[in-house]
């Protein structure tokens, strides 16, 4: 038997800061390399029971962590205790940007980190394997890890400006590393490089509410500001989804169109050819033989063809229900003109005209027709003496296509705006990057990438 077996490792006892005497609680059971006094901010060697001072510092608690040291929360299937907190900053073109990092500890699973910037949270895990460096189609740097390509976002020198609690490395105020971020939302790969070491970690965007729930923080989290590099695009901003919806609804419309087209009666109820003499006087109107329009309510397609020559004709029509006397009045005009102008012959052909009368109840109907044309005058008179022949065809219940295509067209209308919303989101995401524009956008400046301001 191993004498160490079954022995429960107790919680470390509270110690006193050798610099200022304040009580220091070690939460990571000695797994941490350093601990920073919450009162005087001296960095102490957490692996040494005497808490040797590594860095003397006199500072006030100027940054209050959202998650107090010692609080526990369940994230990614495990319980984590907050044991350390630091604020780090980078300087980009003279402006300081700060973010905050929490060290999470579980004695079996080790360390994880939470980073927070403008209320955007990421859960960060160190990764043991090395991402593969590459470039994208626009020659911008990428890294590939586990088959996912991450686009380079930013490289900057990050320095620690405030620190408290325990860390798995010897954290120091003013400590500087070169930090590079590569993103593939909602994930980020980050490298931190010093002379002797390069470490990689993978972050995943976590909604602030999930942090609040995990650590049981009362109230609602402050709303995040702007778009963060790993923030998933909201559903409406995803450019594939509107197209997917468009496709689905278009298919639906086409399906309806085919369904109703195959069910349409398409019954020709009248197909007659008439003539009239423009020169004739007297009553021009007449009625057709009666015909039956089957079904309850359906459309009636009326097609008029005029056998004309340099003339026009207007046919006034009324579809009259023989039983009820209800009349649907309408008219169609046909014309055909041709000639020679400056040596070139021209034609203006409108010999066919058609209309669809919607929602005509079934029943026995007849059509009243009244053709009209220009009274022949002058030189045309002799020609126009010719009688005008015209054909009228009535079809009950024709399939209609136009409204479906109109529907599809209307579905298309919001797409450019939705696409733009997605593009805007990506533009906002990448605005804060070293490039100012998304990885596949054409850079306005040359390859330097720094002069886009």
């Amino acid at each position, binding site marked *: 038997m*191993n*004498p*160490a*077996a*079954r*022995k*429960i*490792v*107790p*919680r*470390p006892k509270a110690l006193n800061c050798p610099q200022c005497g304040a009580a220091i609680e070690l939460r990571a*059971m*000695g*797994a*941490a*390399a350093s601990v920073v006094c919450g009162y005087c901010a001296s960095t102490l060697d957490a*692996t*040494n*029971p005497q808490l040797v001072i590594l860095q003397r510092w006199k500072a006030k608690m100027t940054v209050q962590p959202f998650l107090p040291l010692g609080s526990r929360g369940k994230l990614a299937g495990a*319980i984590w205790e907050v044991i350390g907190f630091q604020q780090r900053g980078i300087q980009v073109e003279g402006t300081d940007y700060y973010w905050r990092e929490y060290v999470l500890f*579980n*004695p*079996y*699973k*080790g*360390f994880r980190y939470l980073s927070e910037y403008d209320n955007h949270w990421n859960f960060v895990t*160190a990764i*043991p*394997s*090395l*991402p*593969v460096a590459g470039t994208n189609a626009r020659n911008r740097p990428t890294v590939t*890890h586990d088959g996912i390509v991450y686009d380079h976002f930013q490289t900057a020198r990050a320095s620690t400006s405030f620190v408290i609690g325990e860390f*798995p*490395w*010897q954290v120091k105020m003013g400590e500087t590393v070169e930090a590079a971020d590569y993103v593939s939302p909602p994930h980020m790969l980050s490298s931190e490089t010093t*002379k*002797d*070491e*390069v*470490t990689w970690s993978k972050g995943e965007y976590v909604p602030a509410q999930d942090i609040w729930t995990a650590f049981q923080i009362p109230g609602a989290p402050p709303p995040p500001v702007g778009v963060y590099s790993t923030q998933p695009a909201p559903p409406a901003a995803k450019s594939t989804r509107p197209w997917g919806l468009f496709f689905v609804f278009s298919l639906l419309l086409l399906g309806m169109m085919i369904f109703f087209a195959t069910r349409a009666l398409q019954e020709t109820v009248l197909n007659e050819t008439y003539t009239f003499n423009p020169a004739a006087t007297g009553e021009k109107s007449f009625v057709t033989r009666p015909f039956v329009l089957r079904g309850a309510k359906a459309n009636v397609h009326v097609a008029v063809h005029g056998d004309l020559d340099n003339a026009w004709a207007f046919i006034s029509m009324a579809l009259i229900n023989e039983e009820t006397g209800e009349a649907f009045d309408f008219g169609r005009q046909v014309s055909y003109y041709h000639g020679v102008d400056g040596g070139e012959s021209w034609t203006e052909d409108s010999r066919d005209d058609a209309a669809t009368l919607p929602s005509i109840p079934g029943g026995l109907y007849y059509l009243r027709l009244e053709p009209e044309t220009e009274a022949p005058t002058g030189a045309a008179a002799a020609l126009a003496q010719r009688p005008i022949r015209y054909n009228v065809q009535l079809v009950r219940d024709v399939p209609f296509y136009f409204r479906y295509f109109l529907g599809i067209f209307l579905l298309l209308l919001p797409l450019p705006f939705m696409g733009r919303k997605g593009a805007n989101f990506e533009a906002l995401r990448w605005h804060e990057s070293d490039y100012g524009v998304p990885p596949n956008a054409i850079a306005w400046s040359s390859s330097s990438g720094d002069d886009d301001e």
Partner: protein
Amino acid sequence: MSQPSAICPNCGAPIRFRWSSAIQTTCEYCKSILVRHDVNLEKVGQVADLPPDISPIQIGTEGVYRNTAFQVIGRIIYSHDIGAWNEWHLIFSNGSSGWLSDAQAEYAVSFLSQPESPLPGPGEIYRGWEYSQQGVRLAVTTLTEASYEGVEGELPFTYWDKERCRFADLRSVDGRFATIDYTEAPPLLFLGEFVEFESLRLTNLKEFEGWTA
């Protein structure tokens, strides 16, 4: 009780070996470091108090790696300027020996391997240096100057008199891992891979107050 056993030359306590090839062990009672010479044990040093325990693993922890059961029988503790880590000596059910390194709960299993090509000297290696073995390309990510903090249990070599150690850690794109150990000349190469804590299915772990495994 087929394990070879002996008596601690310092305190007379029985010393049981879990592994017949062990060269060095520590007495569980008086903490003497004992080196085996044929059947005799020689006390070569005394283990100082171990630094605060930082790992859920302990001597006697059992687990499974690539379908082969192992037991933790020894440990070397190193410290460097930004922390400490453990190299746990594993003895597998097939008799082979390997190492489980535990650096702040980042776990890797590795085995002593014969280098396919000569390794650079301690002054020639640098971060970013690349090495290929068994078709795996590895690059140096960390150079560590470590000091030797303590030992526990059975080890395949004598490790009691090494003070400063230089290590180069190498990583691949797919989670493979290598360490070049400059405590010997020519340097030793350990090849392996990073492992998830859960995948080792460890039992007989240390228990921590206020936590459940």
